[in-house]
């Protein structure tokens, strides 16, 4: 895995291998989560759907189909307080082309033309395209709300970070999406190309010089200057000053319980390894305290797990429980965290947590999309850390460091989604 700069604020991350039968290329534009979030979410979808050469959906889809069903997918995601706009292209390798076509090269050209030559008029993005993407994005927001597990986590985050940029959804808001004009998206597009850091990830079999030769000129044509490039900054709140409890009712069969903790971090790698192992002991995996006790011993739930969101210094515990059992589950989860704080976990559990994390790091290199995701997860920092280095960090974590880390964790927000049916 390599990372190098190819133009002002443009980095190229590559993993060259013949291990896979496909390649993935992703362009990640790193922007702050606080400005024009809805405009940018619309933009990345507009860019993926049509461009100057393929002006209709059907033309674009025919082009992708001619590249053996290449997939070009847009996404807007939240990474700390950054909104990362991603266009990902996945293609089969040239060696499987039936008529010796250059699938990857053509695919990358298509990707670049989506980014640099959209189908626009002097007034900006065309109305019919904009209206379609507004509808699709609004429906995606609706659809995510219909997934109650995701909805409960989103609501907890909104409540916990209500005074922080992090509460925003990377998809924007339906209200703002409905108002945005083609001209506004156009202006945002121009600004992003000049001032935002861009990371391009390429995984698969390719010729690195040819690859750089295709990509670099697109960026060199722009007047990008290193001094204009700004990386978004994330605010870390290391400690909670008391628990906020929010309860909502909906007509659901199963209630949801989500607890947000401040992890005691002041930046994304602050005491990272110890906190990561501690979180695993607490609630990530079948060996964890939450699984073994809240699920297996108490039979309170099917899922109850903790995960660290290191880019924001938050630990989230998610569970689905009968509404009548909510308090019992909440107390049990708090009790298990106390157990970790007091060092009441076995050496076997500690080893299991480390082994499980290392297993995850070792698996990264076995899939095209997990390698791409690894690159993307690090796009906010100036340098690159390979999975092997995370393994080494994990190995050095001691029992004492885990206990210290657990004692830095403070409960911030409890979000409860109650089943209305049972409350009546």
């Amino acid at each position, binding site marked *: 895995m390599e990372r190098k700069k190819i133009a002002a604020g443009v980095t190229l991350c590559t993993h060259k291998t013949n291990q896979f*039968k496909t390649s993935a290329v992703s362009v990640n534009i790193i922007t702050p989560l606080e400005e024009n979030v809805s405009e940018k979410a619309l933009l990345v979808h507009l860019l993926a759907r049509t461009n100057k050469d393929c002006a209709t959906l059907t033309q674009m889809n025919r082009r992708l189909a001619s590249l*053996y069903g290449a997939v070009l997918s847009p996404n807007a995601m939240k990474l700390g307080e950054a909104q990362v706009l991603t266009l990902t292209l996945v293609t089969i390798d040239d060696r499987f082309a039936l008529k010796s076509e250059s699938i990857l090269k053509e695919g990358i050209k298509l990707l670049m033309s989506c980014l640099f030559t959209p189908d626009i008029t002097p007034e900006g993005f065309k109305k019919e395209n904009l209206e379609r993407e507004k509808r699709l994005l609004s429906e995606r927001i609706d659809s995510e709300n219909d997934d109650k597990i995701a909805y409960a986590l989103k609501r907890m985050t909104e409540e916990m970070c209500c005074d922080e940029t992090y509460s925003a959804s990377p998809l924007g808001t339906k209200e703002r999406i409905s108002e945005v004009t083609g001209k506004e998206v156009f202006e945002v597009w121009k600004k992003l190309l000049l001032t935002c850091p861009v990371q391009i990830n390429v995984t698969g079999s390719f010729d690195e010089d040819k690859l750089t030769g295709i990509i670099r000129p697109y960026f060199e044509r722009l007047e990008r200057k290193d001094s204009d490039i700004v990386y978004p900054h994330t605010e870390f709140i290391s400690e909670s000053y008391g628990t906020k409890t929010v309860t909502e009712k909906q007509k659901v069969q199963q209630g949801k319980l989500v607890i947000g903790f401040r992890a005691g971090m002041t930046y994304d790698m602050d005491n990272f390894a110890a906190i990561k192992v501690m979180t695993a002991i607490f609630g990530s995996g079948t*060996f964890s305290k939450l699984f073994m006790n809240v699920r297996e011993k108490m*039979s309170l739930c099917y899922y109850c797990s903790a995960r660290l969101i290191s880019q924001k210094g938050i630990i989230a515990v998610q569970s689905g429980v009968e509404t009548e059992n909510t308090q019992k589950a909440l107390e049990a989860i708090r009790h298990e965290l106390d157990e970790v704080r007091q060092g009441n976990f076995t050496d076997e559990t500690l080893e*299991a947590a480390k082994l499980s994390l*290392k297993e995850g790091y070792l*698996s990264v290199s076995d899939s095209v999309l997990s390698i791409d995701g690894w690159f993307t997860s690090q796009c906010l920092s100036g340098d690159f850390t390979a999975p092997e280095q995370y393994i080494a960090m994990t190995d050095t974590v001691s029992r004492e460091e885990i206990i210290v880390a657990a004692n830095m964790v403070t409960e911030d927000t409890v979000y409860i989604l109650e089943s209305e049916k049972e409350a009546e």
Partner: protein
Amino acid sequence: MNCELRKNELLNEQYYEIDHDSGLKIFVMEKPDYSGAFAMFGTKYGSVDTCFRIKGEDEFTSVPEGIAHFLEHKLFESEELDAFERFSKTGANANAFTSFDRTCYIFQCNGNFKENLEILLDFVKAPYFTEETVQKEQGIIGQEIRMYQDNPDWQVLFNLLRGIYHNNPVRIDIAGTIESIAEINAELLYSCYNTFYNLSNMALSVAGNVTKDEVIAIADKMLKKEDKVEFEQIIPEEDKNVAQSCIEEALGVDIEKFALGFKESYTSPVRTAKETLLMNIALEIIAGKVSPLYSRLMEEGLINTNFGKEYFTGRGFSLPIFTGESHNPEKVRDEIIKAIESIKQNGISDEDFDVAVKKLYGAEIYRYNDVDDLAGNMLDAYFNGSDLFENITLYKSVTKEDVEKLMAVSFDVSNCCLSVIK
């Protein structure tokens, strides 16, 4: 023991198919350039297997809905250390799943492969159920059932199956109901286990950084020869027509979900690789992203990016389905039916056929990337009476006339069901 090497030159892949002395079928694909390995130990037993007897027994046993899934959960337990605790010492990522027609136990690891395979073969072959542990699981699975009841994508599919089928057990929820799992006891679990977890009804599939000799050595050590258990099943008669043409449920979603299925009538229980490929080509031509239907539905605001189509098939059931989200599912259904009728009437153009085949050929290549897919696909192909490389060779021989013929029988537009979650 018989061991055969199967190769495919186009893909530059090969795997071993082994008839182990124990009676177990074993597949191994050696992938030395991968870091990890994936193993899957599965049985041809799922939620649809609800009424059976071992050959020679007097009575058929009818079991509660959801018992195959319940059994999957319980196998992880043993008298001493449960399977999850054993895997936590090796670092492997272990899990299991139950579908309509199979139950599979899996692990992925980047080290200690032999030890992990020993654990897998050991715990699946060592059932341990008591009334107490059965009761404990009812709470956990009860919550799993509740979770799915709130999942509109899951509900829209199961409502569709209940709308399509009168008696076919595929209409039963895989995890059963809170009431049905309350009837499960240790004795019933042993009865299912002894019928379906016989090695002759199972297969082991491994892909990744391993050798076939390693796998065989562990199988030799862990598996005793088992005599084949022959069983009989009662498969309920199924009417040719759908049970309901429309089925609706209110969950209070922000955007309505729909699933539209066309009932097929086959006398043989499993679709061949060729039948499946032809259907997938047909679905691509009807509703793929380059089809006129897709762009019309998209431009008219009737579907969004969650629109999809699938050949939903397994042992004893098969139906082409279209799924998605819409503010007007009835209109989407009408448009799909119109498109099908138009293709049936006018035939398929050479260009549309070529585009669909090229896309599906590309999709086939993607299935050879990840060790979990490779192991899963070898096992699936075997359980479906095919072999892994059959698909990739079929692309050369299928014709648009084959697809047209299939469409004439499989898409009876008067015999479909629309399921909607509001």
